[in-house]
Every structure is written in C-alpha cells, then in structure tokens.
C-alpha cells in the first residue's frame, strides 16, 4: 500500500498536465458538494444555540385524518402540557411558539420584529450565549412578567448602540422590559430563530392554555442520547391513547417526537415510518450527490481509459515481471484515489473561500456557514467515493490487457 502511494505521487508529479486537468474537474465538483454539505450542516447539525440538539426531540406537528380530509397543524399549548410535559425520565421540557411577525415603532419608524413566546424550559434547552443580562425564569413565565430577551441586532435597531438592559419595548399593546441580549441567530435554525422572546404567560388571552392544536413547538431534552429511543417509545405509547380533537371530523391522529431533520423530511415522505422517512431523504440526498459526481467521474473514467494506451507498455512490463491482476487494479485505483484526495484538499481550501464569499453576501440574515472538521471528513469521504467511482473500471480494463499486446503498445 505504501509503495502504491509513493508510486502514485511520483506518477502524478511527472504527469503534470493530466494531473492538472483531472484535479480541476475533481476540485470543482467537490467544491459544490462541500458547500452544499456546509449548508446542510448549518441547517441540521447541532450548533449554538442548539448545541444540545443531539439529545433533543420536538413535537412540531399534529396531523388528524378523517373521511373529509387531513388537518395538519402545530400542537397547541394544552396538547403539549397534557401529553408531552409529563413524559418520564427527561432532563427538561420546553415550549415556544412559532415566530410571530409583528412590529414596534422607534421615533415613528416601523421596526419589524419576529416574536416568540417561550417558557422557562426553552432557555434550559437552547443554550444562548448572553451578551448582556439573563433569560427569563419559569416563575416569570408563570406570573406573566413583562420581560423580554432580544437579539443584539434588534437592540442595535431599537436603541442605536445604547445599553439595552432595562429599556422597554412596546409591542402588541404591551410593554416589555429587556432583561437579556443574545447574538442574532440564523433564520435556518428552525427552533432558535427569532428576534425577541417573551414569556408565554404574557399572551393576552388564556384560551391558548386549553388548545389541542395551535402554533407551538414542544421540546424534550433527554439526559443522554441513549435515552432517546425509550422516550420516543413512551411518547408513542401516550399518543396511542390520545383521542382526536373532534371525533366527528377525524378518526386518526399522528404525532411524532422527532429531530429537526425528521420534521423537515416528514412532508416529503408522509406515508413512511419515522426512521424510513429519514433514510429515504438521506438516500435521495446521497443519490443526488452521486449523480452530481457521476458526470465528472465519467469524464475521469474517459481520461483514464485513454491513458491505457499511453501506459500499456508499463502494464505489459509489470505483467511480465509478475504483477497479478489484483495488484495492478490496486495500483491504478490507489493512483486515482490519491488524485481525488488531493482534489478534495484543494476543494476544501477553495470551498473555504467560497463560503467566506457567501457569508459576506448576507443572502440570509445572520446565516454563517463554516467549514469544520466534520465537513472536511464528509469531503474526504466524497473524494474517496469519487476516486473509486472513476478508478475501478479503468483499473480493471488496464489489468485485463494481454501482456503481449500491452508490450506492443496496443490496448486491444
């Protein structure tokens, strides 16, 4: 293996034009895939303030089906309070509304605000880094205290750089006192994104407390990842006993405790089970990535096949001196994988530049992509797959050359 690696580097170093052309195609493909991976990673991987989300599950949706149709909505406070909060053996339970688009006024100018109402548990599960102040507590939520946490970006808009703590914001007919400031969150973070958070207890009417469906998300944090399957089973057992909201209109209820990725894929694979659905979407993403790689891989296959003629003498010599077929296949596959790995490293470096440009472009507010070791790992894995894809067939063709023909310089 070491010999093959050294040999591969020597050959690539000598065949500069071939190496350049191949690396160009490989790097370009891998850049696109790495940037796409960085985007997916940004949206779904556990990152601040959702860094605990590898052990957090959510209730994002309640679907009820009847003979007249299907109704799919967010769960209501009453539903979550009655069926999810009492789950056993969890570290924390929290709730938040979906962001509500509202506005406040500064000197007569309208400032749009994405408002969320949350409970105290929300701040236990989402670990915001507080730039100033603190989150609100369960007691403040229960008492309906008019307090708020806002983002630094909103603080800048409203108070123009002055300290925000203690300042008040008039919104939806109420006035809230700022008790905490956190860094702005990317819009792609489904649970964390918002600009202002106030206690659920400040909701004007108490009707929400009994609602089966509404605009809430319920969050359950396990003590350990290993507890998640048990918590899901407990939840499913509870759901099996929950009656539909209106038996005249509906006869079945579907509700899942799921990851953000599972909730994202659910609309695409509505009829599949939770695990199968995730697998299907991961499979589709994998197939798309493979298809995307297929074209440049075919191109590299063609280049490699055309090189059979060029290298036929070498193949003949190696065969004459005792190279078995599998040794030749390994040699050429190793050469190709080394080439694609170098392409992967170049692509990683260029992807970093592309991502820096994307971050500068501010297409989505506060959306910061970055390349981390995990993405580097995915990138290298993609490179190896690419290397095998484009290397195995030409290597096999080379290894099956008849030694006499190969020595004559023919590829027949």
């Amino acid at each position, binding site marked *: 293996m*070491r*010999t093959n690696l050294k*040999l591969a580097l*020597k*050959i690539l170093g*000598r*065949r500069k034009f071939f190496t350049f052309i191949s690396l160009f195609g490989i790097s370009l493909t891998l850049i696109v895939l790495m940037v796409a991976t960085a985007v997916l990673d940004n949206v779904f991987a556990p990152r601040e303030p959702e860094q605990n989300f590898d052990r957090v599950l959510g209730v994002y949706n309640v679907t009820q089906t009847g003979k007249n149709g299907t109704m799919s909505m967010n769960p209501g406070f009453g539903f979550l309070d009655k069926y999810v909060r009492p789950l056993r053996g969890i570290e924390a339970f929290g709730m938040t509304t979906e962001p509500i688009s509202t506005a406040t006024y500064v000197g007569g100018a309208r400032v749009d605000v994405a408002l969320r109402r949350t409970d105290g548990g929300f701040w236990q599960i989402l670990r915001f880094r507080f730039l100033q102040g603190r989150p609100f507590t369960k007691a403040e939520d229960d008492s309906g205290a008019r307090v708020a946490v806002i983002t630094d970006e909103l603080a800048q808009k409203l108070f123009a750089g002055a300290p925000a703590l203690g300042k008040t914001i008039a919104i939806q007919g109420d006035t809230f006192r700022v008790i905490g400031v956190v860094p702005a969150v990317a819009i792609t973070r489904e649970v964390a994104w918002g600009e202002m958070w106030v206690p659920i207890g400040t909701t004007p009417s108490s009707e929400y407390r009994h609602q089966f469906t509404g605009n809430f998300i319920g969050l359950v944090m396990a003590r350990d990842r290993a507890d998640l399957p048990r918590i899901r089973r407990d939840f499913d057992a509870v759901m099996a006993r929950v009656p539909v909201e209106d038996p005249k209109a509906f006869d079945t209820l579907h509700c899942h405790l799921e990851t953000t990725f599972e909730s994202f894929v659910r609309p695409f694979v509505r009829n599949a089970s939770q695990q199968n659905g995730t697998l299907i979407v991961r499979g589709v993403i994998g197939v798309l990535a493979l298809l995307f790689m297929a074209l440049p891989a075919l191109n590299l296959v063609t280049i490699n096949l055309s090189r059979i003629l060029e290298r036929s*003498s*070498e193949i*003949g*010599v*190696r*065969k*004459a*001196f*005792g*190279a*078995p*077929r599998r*040794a030749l296949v390994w040699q050429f596959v190793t050469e190709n994988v080394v080439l694609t790995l170098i392409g992967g490293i170049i692509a990683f470096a260029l992807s970093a530049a592309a991502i820096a440009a994307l971050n500068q472009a501010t297409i989505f507010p506060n959306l910061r992509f970055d390349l981390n070791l995990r993405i580097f790992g995915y990138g290298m894995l993609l490179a190896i797959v690419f290397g095998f894809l484009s290397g195995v067939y030409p290597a096999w063709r080379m290894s099956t050359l*008849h*030694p*006499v023909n190969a*020595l004559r310089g023919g590829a027949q």
Partner: protein
Amino acid sequence: MIKLENVNKVYRTERVETLALENINLDVAPGEFVSVMGPSGCGKSTLLNLIGLLDAPTKGKLSIENTAINGAGDGKLARFRNEKLGFVFQSFHLVPDLRVVDNVEIPLLYRRMSGGERRKLATKALERVGLSSRVHHFPTQLSGGQQQRAAIARAIVGRPRILLADEPTGNLDSAMGEEIMSILHDLNQNDGTTIVMVTHDERFARRTDRIVRLFDGRQVA
C-alpha cells in the same frame, strides 16, 4: 530447464487464422545460452512469449523446470514469471515516469520484501551492469545502451534462473550491442543463468551455445 513439445500457436481473428508456430520441439538445458534466429514474422518473438508465459500455446506442452504450465491461472503464471523469469526487450520498456532505481525495483514489488531490501537489491543490480552513477536518473536522461543496461538490471534483480531477451541489441549501435552482449555472457557464465535470446545478428548468435532457426513458424535448425 525449458521444454516445448509439439507446440503450436494459432492467432485467430473473425476472418483469418494464422499459424504462427507449428510443431515446435525445444529443450533448453540449465545454464545454456540459446539464440533464436529467423526472418521477420517467422515466429521468434511468439516463441519467446510462450516461453515467457506471456502467451499460451494453442496446442502442445510447455514445461519450465519440470513444471507443466498449460492451463495455469493468472495468479500462478504471475508468480512463476516473477520468481523464475527475467525479460529484456528490444525497446527497453522502462517506465518513463519512474527513476532508474524504481524501474529496477519493479519485479520486487510483487514479492514480500521491505522497501529497504528492495532498494539494496536494485542498487546492487545496477552496480552489476555498471550503472551505479545513474540510479536517480529518469530513463529519458540515459543513452540507449544505458537504458538497456537498466533493463537488464531490472531483469536480474529478482535473481531469475531464466533470462529471455527479445532482440536486446536491436535498437543499439554495434559498440553498445557488444556491451550488452558481454553483460549477458557474464550472467550466463558466472551466474549460470539460462538465456534464450531472439536476435537478427548472426555475429552475436554465433557466440551463444546453440542457434535455433525458425522459418514460417517451423523450426528448421
């Protein structure tokens, strides 16, 4: 050492069938230096390819060191070539991307051997052919004679008992041809290497132990 009994070689294409060798019987003794002569297209190289296990006879029996070769698989043939045979080609067939020493190491890559040991044997083989000062050169930086000497080093690095040389002096001027022939004679006389050499040059052939002559695929002497 090398025995061919009633060997035929036929090349078939969709339309044509060509009898390249017909009823060849040859027995080469250990330590013998045999040259094969004949006009172009008479089957000399085909015969050498059969002995070198690079091609298989259509009919007849081929054995090397009392081992029948007919019907052996790719792995066995590869191992046999690696351990028992060395090749010298008219056009050298050095890999241009590799340095001389790496070229010489090629046969040893397919043996269980450390990199250090490979390098030691390759250097020794290059010394034997008088190329120790060109170890790190690329083939294109060498003269024709030097390239053929490097090719001989590659052929002997694995200490094969049999050396097969296909017109080893064919691409060289007479002085360089002499150089190569003296190396081959040295290997034959001092190491006891059995050599079968295809040549067009009567002078060189006459200096070998025996001449096998072919004409239109048949052995005529």
